[in-house]
């Protein structure tokens, strides 16, 4: 099993978690991104995800390495799904285990923020009256200025 991967099939959450279970861990924090129907007034019908797969997997692994450096004794696994996803489908599962719980929460939060910054994955929203690649509407999106932007809520 690969700890950092892009898949086309539904994600088995338990499999992602299994990869971080460890005798020295007392806490596992997971983040699961699901497809939401309503964003403000707009109703999503379904999403389409595209990725530059080999590079996306490398960047996910990079995030894992960053986490292991910031939170020693942690274990990380991340799976992101691409293709067509319906409302409530799981797009991404992040699992982080650490000896104590504070670090587990911080690290899984860090992982999702970094995914939204550096991993070459794109989401296309399909609404009743149109469609759009998300991210495209942002001008001068600056990815690599160091810190994740915690206020970004485009999940």
């Amino acid at each position, binding site marked *: 099993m690969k700890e950092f991967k892009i898949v086309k099939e539904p994600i088995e959450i338990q499999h992602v978690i299994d990869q971080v279970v460890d005798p020295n861990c007392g806490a596992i924090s997971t983040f699961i991104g699901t497809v939401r129907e309503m964003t403000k007034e707009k109703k999503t019908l379904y999403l389409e995800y595209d990725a530059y797969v080999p590079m996306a997997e490398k960047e996910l692994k990079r995030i894992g390495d960053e986490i292991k450096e910031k939170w020693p004794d942690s274990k990380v696994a991340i799976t992101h799904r691409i293709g067509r996803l319906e409302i409530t489908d799981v*797009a991404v599962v992040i699992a982080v285990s650490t000896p104590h719980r504070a670090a587990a929460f911080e690290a899984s939060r860090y992982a999702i923020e970094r995914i939204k910054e550096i991993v070459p*994955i*794109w989401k296309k929203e399909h609404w009743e009256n149109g469609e759009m690649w998300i991210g495209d509407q942002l001008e001068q999106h600056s990815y690599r200025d160091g810190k994740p932007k915690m206020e970004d809520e485009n999940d």
Partner: protein
Amino acid sequence: MIKVLLFATLQEKVGASELSLEENAIKISDLKNRLIEEYDVQEFSNCLVAINEEYAGDNDIAESGDTIAFIPPVSGG
């Protein structure tokens, strides 16, 4: 030959997922300007670029055998 990969909005606007350049070497900034003009797609200017799956800068140079990928603003998660 240098391979150029396009994704998401760029792929749709250019109408191709892959281009081939018959060059021995090209600077990323020069390639961006050329593609903006050739396809009339302004979004190239707003992209990050990877050479062989690693992020690269506008002043980096790709050589024959390399793969360049244009990375529009990402929106995973």
